[in-house]
């Protein structure tokens, strides 16, 4: 059974927090995953890949966090290309697909995110680096949006992402406090009968 995008974003929020990022960055992750799936792009896979690379030692330790870099771009603290054709190197970034929603906010909305192998997101030809692992990324100023607004019509997370839902649920679990005897006693309504 498919998932609503609202619950997908709520799961992304909790999972990102569970993986150790701040609540504010977790909100960015939720927004990014929502944005990507609205456009039929596998944001939840990318987030899954990123959180795993954060939480498990990999060879990509030097790769930038797509959420920290993405917010630097949307907050205006990172340089962006200002002339058509101009390019800026972003260095190596984990799960670069997660950068796309942030790049889309850069005025005037025609900045493109590119990785070696082509402008994959625009053509749906996935490079593994977009989802898992990392890739050297560039920003390029273009004349049209990389992801057309008309693509934002998806309303559901398809069944094929059930595995990602399970993995993110595991990270989300880390935000839940183990029960203590005191918290059980203080629970909402313990000890009262509901057979009245």
């Amino acid at each position, binding site marked *: 059974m498919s998932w609503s995008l609202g619950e997908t974003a709520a799961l992304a929020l909790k999972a990102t927090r569970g993986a150790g990022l701040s609540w504010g960055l977790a909100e960015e992750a939720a927004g990014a995953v929502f944005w990507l799936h609205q456009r039929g792009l596998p944001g939840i896979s990318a987030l899954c890949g990123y959180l795993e690379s954060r939480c498990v030692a990999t060879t990509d330790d030097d790769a930038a966090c797509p959420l920290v870099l993405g917010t630097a771009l949307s907050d205006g603290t990172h340089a962006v290309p200002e002339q058509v054709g101009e390019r800026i190197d972003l260095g190596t970034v984990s799960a670069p697909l997660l950068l796309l929603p942030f790049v889309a906010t850069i005025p005037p909305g025609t900045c493109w995110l590119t990785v070696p192998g082509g402008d994959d997101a625009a053509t749906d030809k996935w490079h593994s680096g977009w989802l898992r692992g990392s890739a050297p990324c560039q920003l390029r100023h273009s004349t049209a949006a990389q992801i057309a607004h008309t693509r934002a019509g998806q309303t559901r997370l398809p069944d094929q992402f059930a595995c990602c839902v399970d993995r993110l649920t595991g990270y989300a679990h880390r935000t839940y406090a183990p029960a*203590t005897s005191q918290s059980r006693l203080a629970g909402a309504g313990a000890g009262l009968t509901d057979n009245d």
Partner: protein
Amino acid sequence: MSDGRETTENRERARGDAFRQAPLRPPQTVMRLARMGAFHQSRLSFMRVLLRRLKSEGWVIDRPVFDIDDRGVGVATYRARGPQATYTLVAFAHQLDDDQRSDRVIAEAWDATFTLCDGEVDAAQIDRLSGNVPKQEAGRISESELVLSRANKSVRLFSHVVDQLAAGRQPDPEMIESVGYLFRTTAVYGAGKFGAADRSQWSARPEFTGSFQPEMLAVWLIRAFSIDIVEHAARMKSPATAIAMDPDIRRRLGIGNSTGLGMAPFLINHPRLINSWIAARETALARVRALPDATMPQIEMFRQLTRRAAHNAADWHVADERQMARIERLCADFDWIIARADRLSPDDELPWDALYRAAEAALSLEGQEALVSLMLEPHAALVDGLADCMHAEEDVAHRIDGTVPAGDVLAALESQYDWTDSIDYDSPAAQARVWYVSEEKLEPRLGERHEEPLEPYEQPLCPGRDAVRMRRDLASFDPADSLGAFLLKHPEHRHMARRLQIVGGLEFGEIRDNTIGASMIPIDLLRCKLSFFGATKFDPRSDRWLRITMYQGAPFPDELATLDPDDLVYPPLDEAAPA
């Protein structure tokens, strides 16, 4: 001219409406937990908004399926057809042992489970739902469904009503009044939960303008089911003698609801929405206070309703000592309100403003807020249109403007959160509590920070404390540098920075109280939200959960065409004790 801010006035201007109004009560008066925890239902409550709309648009309700066996197990459907759309409640009736009956979120079985479907349903859809809806959180619904809910019987009242109807007698009205419902819901999930359609998929439909309209429709239809199932049980028990319930007695049955801490964070997590609700109610009050005089029909309606509301208050009994003391004070406040109502005259100048000002000095918060709701009643033309403003688009990742100079952000924090100046967050009592989600229940809980190892799991539900922390770090940051640069250094403040920019344009978006202090009473948060739903008979069962009644007195589907739902909220005067 509109100044572009997100105010109710500007929204109404955009629609071409303009009404004279007094100044709004300031947020430092309204947005206090003690006052919010004293709110009462009003003309703007979502149940009343729904029934007004269903009535004015001539919605037709029927029951295409009622396939319930002699044990009370089976399925029924309730179809609501309006001018543009059809919705169907699918109700599954179950047999539940007493030892499984729990109102708590950890329950795994219920007396009845429900889903509200978009459109008509066929046998295949009912079959799919029968494998999921009875499991509630452990099942999945689809984007063809809008609401998921479940309810348990009030065993005592249900048995009484079955026995009486089966024997050909009406149930005891006093017993009906003392419980108020045959079923109480223990959760009503909507807006994308457990696979349901996201709010964005239906929020533009005219019948769902406002807030929580699908949920309110589901609960109203559940109420109809609660009567059908009890009458069915009586017929099964004694087919030869069983009778249907008298409509006047039946109408005193609402639907109960048990609500705990799961609902508490909502008011903090949805500042735009809360702003839209409170601003609408405050605008309504300001319009009524600006009226230069009162007509005799308005005065007479007000006098009648104050007596009926007083009767309602006198019938409000709870075990909770704090609330019972407040109710006793409210009853005394009603004596004052009735006496003032009797002195109102068409010759008075600014009569409603004078009444409200006098009440501020004379009445408890319960009394003041009950009066506010009552003052709106005779003024449908001024008030009811505001219901269309009671919604908001919330965005968890609302884009932060990172270019603002850090010095300006600090100034904004100092002015918007000036109320935190009176709270010493370094004192243990000011941070005594911690909001967290328990692994065992997967629900928001409130723990003791200094007694349990809960801090690592803290949820961001304490804007006052977080604003103070951000101020401290901003104070040592270059004021000419940007907010974005500050957040690169301090990602832990990103949540608060976003919140600051969201609530900056909202008069009533932030609760001006410490939500983690030792003296905070969580049910104040619950009551505020539930009053906007239209709930009555708030019955605190502890400081962190309560029971309420919904739709008590409201018309049933077969009465909607002939009765006025707005006139039925308070009990009729002929039953009322003499004032």
